[in-house]
């Protein structure tokens, strides 16, 4: 952020004043109450006053819910308010985790949960590997001396800003039975494919569309990593007449490696929570072929006839544990990168 100096000044100033104006009006209004407060608590107390609103928000909407989540998962019934709920101990977890063999979702008592977990695993495996692969290729190409680099960077980046609903609708329109892709297939003499009827195709497009939408973000991080590599290393390699392939394997990749790891873990954390695009694109179908863990929680807690908040909470805690492990991995990987 501090290195924003390459910004065209005019654009920057306009943006800043547009974003800043309404804020400043609010601040003027708050002048009086805050000077009153300062007279009361003194300068030493002021940091807490400044922190208070944010901490209250965190408390109400993150910390308290976190504890309630555990409480929910140990209770049963359909009541939303905790005082009306029945304590059931670890019943929800036992129900959720009751499987004959863990490799096969059908042998589990709550097979939808396991199907969701299993689908998420398949999705994450393919999505993350190809996402990172294509982001890496794109970043490497954008890092070269090509004409119109800024333009191409924008080309790959803009889907990141699109809403998941928009992304899904754009692709759904292409993939429909009478969509343009099927028109293309027919024109080259093939049969139409019903992409949302076949489980394999639905999963393929779920992975594809989510890569399409998020690739730009990871490309940008990798590009920043590539640009941080000392140019004199490349110059030295060129002097020695080292081949481009060798330069890639011996200089670029090893120096980019820490960034690559960070990207992989970030993509894992996002991938495990996949919901929006796929939900709009396939609705989790056909059947439960593209239903993921977040959709399982959403369905169980909010859309089923009998809203099972306890089960949804227990499932979200399982998700939370997975995310916690991944976040710890992220911290370790980021620390390793930043310490060189």
């Amino acid at each position, binding site marked *: 952020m501090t*290195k924003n100096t390459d910004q065209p000044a005019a654009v920057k100033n306009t943006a800043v004043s547009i*974003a800043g104006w309404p804020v400043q009006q609010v601040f003027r209004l*708050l002048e009086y109450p805050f000077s009153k407060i300062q007279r009361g608590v003194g*300068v030493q107390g002021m940091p*807490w006053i400044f922190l208070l609103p944010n901490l209250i928000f965190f408390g109400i909407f993150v910390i308290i819910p976190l504890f309630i989540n555990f409480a929910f998962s140990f209770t049963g019934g359909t009541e939303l308010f905790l005082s009306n709920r029945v304590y059931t101990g670890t019943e929800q977890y036992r129900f959720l985790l009751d499987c004959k063999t863990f490799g096969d979702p059908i042998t589990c008592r709550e097979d939808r949960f396991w199907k969701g977990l299993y689908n998420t695993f398949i999705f994450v495996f393919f999505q993350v590997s190809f996402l990172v692969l294509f982001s890496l290729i794109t970043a490497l190409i954008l890092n070269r001396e090509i004409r119109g680099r800024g333009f191409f960077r924008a080309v790959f980046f803009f889907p990141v800003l699109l809403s998941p*609903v928009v992304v899904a609708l754009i692709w759904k329109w292409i993939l429909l039975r009478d969509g343009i892709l099927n028109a293309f297939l027919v024109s080259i003499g093939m049969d139409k494919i019903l992409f949302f009827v076949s489980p394999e195709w639905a999963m393929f497009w779920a992975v594809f569309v989510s890569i399409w939408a998020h690739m730009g973000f990871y490309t940008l991080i990798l590009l920043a990593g590539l640009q941080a590599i000392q140019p004199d290393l490349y110059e030295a390699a060129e002097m020695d007449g080292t081949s481009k392939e060798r330069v890639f394997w011996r200089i670029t990749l090893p120096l980019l490696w820490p960034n690559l790891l960070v990207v992989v873990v970030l993509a894992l954390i996002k991938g495990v929570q996949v919901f929006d695009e796929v939900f709009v694109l396939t609705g989790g179908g056909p059947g439960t072929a593209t239903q993921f863990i977040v959709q399982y*929680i959403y369905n169980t807690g909010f859309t089923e006839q009998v809203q099972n908040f306890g089960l949804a909470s227990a499932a979200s805690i399982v998700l939370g544990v997975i995310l916690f492990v991944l976040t710890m991995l992220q911290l370790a990987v980021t620390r390793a990168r930043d310490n060189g």
Partner: protein
Amino acid sequence: MADPGVETKNLVSIILARRGRKKWHWTDIFSYTYLALGIFLMFGPVLWLGMSSFKTRAGLLEFPPTFFPLGQIELQVEGYEKPLLLFDVKMDDGSTRQLAQIRRIGIVSQMVDPKNPGEKFKIPIDQRTKVREFRMAWENYRDPLERFNFLLFLKNSVVVTVVATLVTLLINSMAAYGLSIYEFRGRNAIMLFVIGTLMIPITVIMVPVYLVVTNLGMVNSLWAVILPGAATPTGVFLLRQYMLTIPKELIEAARMDNASEWTIFSKVVLPLAMPAIAVLAIFSVMWRWNEFLWPLIVLNRTEVYTLQVGLNAFQGELDVQWHYILAMTVVTLIPVALVFAFLQKFITTGIASSGMK
């Protein structure tokens, strides 16, 4: 990286050997092919959305589809109340005439010569082709805004985005100020706590946050969408890192002048932190405009739908009205496209330096 093989490499070097002094490498060819493919794959779908959104309902049903929005020409023919569709017809004698269709009965269509309304024909339908012209179906855009709740959804989305961004900027910058300007006991603990909340995304605490929101009586009001995500750890972190670079002497000098802490915050620190605040503002606008899962949970009545939830509800209907959906998708996309066009550099430097999205 994919290797197109040694043969290609040799072939390419033979073809391009004489081009300038710098030798072409297979990676050059690969790069430009990749980029060309990239443009097609990234822009194509959006272009197709834009083109399709201007087609009429009938035009969208056509298979194979045309690239440009074409509408069949309709004519007012003397003696007929409604406008009639115009066709090119291959007559039995081999000539081609332009006729208007009165009605279709099975595989035969009754037609009339628009220049001579007395003259009628019975034509098998496979002998006619539609006469079409380039026509943008603006009604796709007009109708949903007039007839459906779309304007309401749009308004809800704008309200959520603006109010939520203001709240976020206010409380996040206050928290960042508290954490960067003062030295006090517990500062590091608070900072850890703030970063720690990053680990708890909404997907993990959906059910209990829904309970909290219900308890506060906010279900089916826009506040239920605005408030839960207002305190963002990324925002606090981003602003704090920026405020730490502000020289302490400035604040000391202001205190010497008897400025209140709030004055120092709003008149000294905030203006200096504007670049970081602008970045957070842009991010917050994008987050809020695009937010889907949480609004989907707490907004169950049509009056409070945001654009994203409304669009999803439209596309989930049994009789999907794609001509409206496509147009409204374009409308939903426009603000983001504008933000991107004008503030691209802000966004990309913001992401590259903070790793947040």
